[in-house]
């Protein structure tokens, strides 16, 4: 007897809860943006999202995950628009028809950081590829994100081009975000590949100088892509396109250009609306 009434009460309560929640948010005015942690961690989206919401009256739900997961969610129709930074992977999703209308938004760059005593002697090398080779040859410790993020994708591509399969005690996979990964690299006196924005944000906490920078493969290009409505039954294609268009709007691009100057004395991103990968 008691069991049955308990079940009935549980069902009723859950039912009410679900209805309350559903009625509160089931509107087509919500845009789900799947994006990388770096755009969120840098604080850029905290500036851009309110701007977009004010302009359009739409509400954005930002889901900030690794680029691999951001694209995977979009491919399942669980997001409406994606801001990512893994060009090769993005082109694959576009070629498969799951993402559409890939447009460049901005770029910054990756840098190779490491301990100041530089056991692999890579400081000032012009080519990131040569630096990677030397780290592997000297079996100096290297901390990888290991999480299918955009940074991880680039790192794996560089190992592959160098003809190295990173394996062994010197190669540490953190499985965490860029900030935590830098913390581990700092603690273990190891090298790491990072975007410049994160290492700037952490310069007070980690003692890892920039050793290799400004090489073409180290460009970190962010693109916006719309989700193919065929990916799922509830994709808000119109809202997704509105956000993508907003990212390329001259006003938005001006905000991107100025972002970070007050805090770091230098901009964190360079806006590139209208350009192609080859132009950079």
């Amino acid at each position, binding site marked *: *007897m*008691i*069991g049955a*009434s*308990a*079940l009935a*009460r*549980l069902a009723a*309560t*859950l039912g009410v*809860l*679900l209805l*309350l*929640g*559903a009625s*509160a*948010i*089931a509107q087509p005015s919500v845009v*789900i943006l799947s994006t990388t*942690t770096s755009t*969120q*961690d840098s*604080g850029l989206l*905290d500036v851009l*999202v309110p701007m977009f919401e004010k302009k359009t009256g739409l509400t954005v*739900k*930002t*889901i*900030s995950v690794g680029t691999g997961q951001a694209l995977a969610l979009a491919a*399942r*129709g*669980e997001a409406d628009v994606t801001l990512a930074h893994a060009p090769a992977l993005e082109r694959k999703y576009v070629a498969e028809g799951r993402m559409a209308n890939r447009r460049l938004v901005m770029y910054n760059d990756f840098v190779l950081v490491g301990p100041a005593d530089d056991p692999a002697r890579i400081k000032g090398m012009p080519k990131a590829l040569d630096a990677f080779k030397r780290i592997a040859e000297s079996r100096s410790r290297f901390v990888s994100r290991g999480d299918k993020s955009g940074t991880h994708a680039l790192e794996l591509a560089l190992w592959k081009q160098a003809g190295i399969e990173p394996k062994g005690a010197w190669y540490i996979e953190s499985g965490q*975000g*860029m*900030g*935590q990964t830098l913390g581990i690299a700092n603690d273990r006196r190891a090298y790491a590949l990072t975007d410049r924005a*994160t290492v700037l*944000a*952490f310069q*007070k*906490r980690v003692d890892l100088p920039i050793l290799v920078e400004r090489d073409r493969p180290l460009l970190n290009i962010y693109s916006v892509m719309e989700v193919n409505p065929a990916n*799922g*039954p*509830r*994709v808000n294609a119109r809202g997704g396109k509105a956000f993508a268009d907003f990212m390329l709007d001259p006003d938005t691009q001006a905000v991107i250009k100025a972002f970070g100057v007050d805090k770091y004395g230098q901009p964190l991103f360079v806006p590139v609306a209208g350009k192609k990968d080859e132009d950079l």
Partner: protein
Amino acid sequence: MGLIGEGLLEALRRLTTGDPEVWQITWLSLQVSATATLVSLLAGIPAGAALALSRFPGRAFLVSLVNTGMGLPPVVVGLFVTILLWRNGALGFLELLYTPAAMVIGQFVIAAPIVTGLTLAAVQQVPEGFRLQMLGLGASRLQMTWVLLKEARLPMLAAVMAGFGGVISEVGASMMLGGNIRGSTRVLTTATVLETGKGNFDVAIALSVILLLITFLVNWALSLIQQRRPG
């Protein structure tokens, strides 16, 4: 040491200056976890009492399931509930993912077995002779259960504290189900993860201190009720 000191100062500063974002995050944490605990009580107390007082085949198995559920890993709960709530998932039509309601559901799944299991133990520890005596004196089963729950008041409040403590402190399910969206689903634990990721350790420590503080205040209030002498 210096960093923790900075964090404590930052916590104090944010609380005293009434930083609206911190207050909003704190308030949402309380709302979500209190709602989840409340629903868990509504479901878990009757379920626990029923399990304690009934005998049927498979009961021992069910009790082990509940006891296992008391230690459900929040990330596992988060993952399964997320898949259910996906737009393409079984409950996708409700469009609940990335809302506070989704977080309440996840936390309910975490807290309900805790409340059920502790209620079960609390009711069972009341001597059986007492139950038989009440029934012998003409009490209905419902009346008897009510008296038993009152008798078991002290351990029952422990169940409330354990349930609330379990959900206010979890991060895995809230992160996946809420998405840590600013102004909408960001709670103290997910905000702490975010600020740590950003390298703002002082802010992260400040949020942790606030979390500890409100957990303490809630438990303090519950302990006062628990330890109150009747009459």
